[in-house]
């Protein structure tokens, strides 16, 4: 049986068994529907970001990446009605089979679906009305009910636990197969890169305070601050080069470490802003024209590398 058929059967089973027979039960336990709704709403950002995607069908229904609906997951894996009752083809099973067929046929037709559903519920009511041996039948029915409810509850809890961000992060990390790191390429989350970013943050703060002051009050940095300015300039140019050698996290959550892809990503992104902000005007104004030219050549080579990669792809 194909996965699609399996999913459909699980789905329709849920519609028939869970929907009709558990609906009064769930409404008597008024907590479960209200509990389910916020969890589903809470999940939606996680779903949109990672493995889950909100299906564009009717209502809020989530599917995993392989197309399996979230709700049917535990129903598919867990014990079904037949497994619990362990009886042969009973009238109820025949009815559910017919219902499956009807549901699969009436998919997309809301009127037909509603009518079949009402018919099926009527049929199950009739079935329930004439038990073979009254006591046994009632007992098994309640057993089935309670077991199913318990299973649903535990499955929901498990799902909620799975959906919390932390475990999702671990799942995502597990999914990332460790790929070989090319020579001289930093991972975006490596300690060196994080330290570098932290240093950049502090230097940016210094720049934000010092640069407007120097412009507004026509003063130049002296002593320690003079050297710090030079360090900042060199730092930013180094940052420009380092960014060509730092992997990035793609939209699908994968780490990209190929130098060519990195260069393409960088040149089409933050490169121009970094380029503009790291021009050492202090050096150029101080008469170090050679240094300025060297800088330009450096940047041009880097940019050309990126552009060549861009054209190759």
């Amino acid at each position, binding site marked *: 049986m194909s996965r699609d058929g399996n999913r459909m059967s699980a789905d329709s089973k849920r519609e028939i068994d869970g929907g009709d027979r558990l609906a009064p039960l769930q409404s008597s336990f008024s907590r479960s529907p209200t509990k389910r709704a916020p969890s589903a709403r809470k999940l939606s950002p996680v779903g949109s970001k990672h493995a889950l995607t909100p299906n564009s069908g009717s209502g809020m229904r989530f599917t995993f990446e392989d197309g399996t609906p979230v709700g049917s997951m535990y129903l598919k894996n867990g014990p079904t009605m037949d497994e619990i009752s362990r009886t042969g083809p009973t009238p109820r099973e025949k009815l559910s089979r017919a219902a499956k067929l009807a549901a699969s046929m009436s998919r997309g037709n809301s009127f037909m679906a509603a009518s079949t559903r009402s018919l099926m519920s009527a049929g199950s009511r009739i079935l329930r009305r004439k038990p073979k041996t009254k006591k046994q039948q009632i007992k098994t029915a309640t057993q089935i009910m309670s077991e199913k409810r318990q299973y649903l509850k535990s499955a929901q809890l498990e799902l909620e636990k799975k959906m919390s961000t932390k475990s999702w992060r671990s799942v995502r990390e597990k999914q990332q197969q460790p790929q070989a790191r090319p020579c001289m390429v930093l991972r*975006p*989350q490596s300690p060196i890169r*994080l330290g570098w*970013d*932290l240093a*950049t*943050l502090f230097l*940016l*703060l210094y*720049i*934000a*305070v010092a*640069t*407007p*002051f*120097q*412009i*507004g*009050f*026509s*003063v130049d940095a002296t002593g320690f601050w003079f050297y710090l300015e030079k360090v900042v300039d060199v730092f*930013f140019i180094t940052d420009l080069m380092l960014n060509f050698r730092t992997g990035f996290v793609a939209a699908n959550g994968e780490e990209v470490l190929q130098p060519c892809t990195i260069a393409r990503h960088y040149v089409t992104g*933050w490169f121009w*802003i*970094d380029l*503009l*902000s*790291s*021009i050492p*005007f*202090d050096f150029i*104004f101080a008469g170090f024209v050679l240094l300025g030219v060297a800088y330009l050549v450096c940047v041009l080579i880097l940019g050309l590398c990126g552009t060549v990669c861009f054209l190759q792809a």
Partner: protein
Amino acid sequence: MLKAGRVVKALRVVRLTKLVRFLKLAVFIEKLEEHFSINRNLLQLVKLLLGTVVMCHFFACMWMFFGTLDMNTDGWVYAEGVQDLPASTQYLTSFYWAVATLATVGTFGLRERGWFF
């Protein structure tokens, strides 16, 4: 000569291109936040406060720059008579203007208030 001085002074403005890097600040903060799991609310508060102060500082400096750009006593610095005071007082005056203007509560008439004279 006077004009050349103005041009040199105005040329310093190109240094402001360094501040373009601030567009990347959000990326840095997001990355660090993701890694160090800082309290999100605290971070928001710090970001807001720091941003406000840096903004006021920036506008104060720019106000000072435009006030002293004209040597012909046209700028507010000469009109207010702040030009010979120490830089700290000048900065405070400018900062006062920036805060008052950004908070949309202030008027700029220091001389009438008798702060300095």
